[in-house]
């Protein structure tokens, strides 16, 4: 029972990655739109996009770290 609840918790923590996925999609969409409209601005768009992607990804990583800690430590 407790083992099952633990893995339920792991699954719920992993669910947080969905939000990060949506965020990454929106960011990619914005960057692609910008690149399509103004391909010359690539040098300005790509580094900023990567930085923003990293911020968004970090939120997902928190959920992932929680899940990993639950599996291997709790």
């Amino acid at each position: 029972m407790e083992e099952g609840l633990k893995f339920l918790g792991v699954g719920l923590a992993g669910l947080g990655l969905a939000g990060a996925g949506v965020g990454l999609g929106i960011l990619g969409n914005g960057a692609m739109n910008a690149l399509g409209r103004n391909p010359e601005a690539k040098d300005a768009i790509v580094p900023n996009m990567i930085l923003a992607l990293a911020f968004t990804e970090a939120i997902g990583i928190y959920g992932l770290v929680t899940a990993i800690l639950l599996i291997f430590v709790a």
Partner: protein
Amino acid sequence: MVAVFGASLLFGLVAGPIGAALLDKEPFIPVPEVELAPPRLLSIGAFHVTNTLVSAWLTTVLVLLLFVGGTRKMKVIPGRLQSVLEMLVEALYGFISGVVGERFARPFFPILATIFIFIAFNAWMALIPVYQVLTLEVDGHATHVLRSAGTDINMPLALAIVAFVFIEVWGFKVHKIGYLKEFFRFKSPIEFFIGILELISHFIRLVSFTFRLFGNMLAGEIILLMITFLLIFTAPLAFYMLELLVGGVQALVFTGLTLVFALLAVAPHVGEHEEHDEKAAH
């Protein structure tokens, strides 16, 4: 080429857990064990030498040897190693001066370049297969001698503290004691509250810096272990490529964020606009 690839794919399918499940046998490859806390190799009093610490030292020594060796006999027309190192340093300098401008690029460069090179080389070196193979008998069970330092939470935490101190010291250096005005505002209750939020956000950076690097490195390591177990020889190739990218990107992100926060700390206090940018960054 295709035959070799097909044969390895077939072998991976049969030897891994997929084949084991189909043939109703034990998997040929042992199930990987994931350890969160790095095991100790050696204890000197209260000081424990862990395998992640050894890999951090190894990275430091190898990077030092590479750079000293590459730049000891510098020539006007550079050799192969020297030109590669020059390209790396120039690219980093260009990145930094592009963000903060020439005035702060020089004083900021050494610490930021060190952070970048350490994180990137540490992550890339952990992809050398030696890391997973080399083991040593400690207290009766085999322990890995080397493991990427990023998978131990202490290394990202240490780097985050370095970055934090770097940012705050530069804030005080440029604004003197007036830097505190950013946090303790007494104009109105709302301003006071914003100042306190600002103070908290500076300390939250420590957490976000640490967990971003730690989470990415640890997740990468676990994914590589699991994929190698699942489908040996072929599938890990793609994930090794991914990890190569992740190592570089995480080093760039850590450096870039330190750079942006340092820029915000040294920038003149113009008011609402910049604060908004900083909040959006979290």
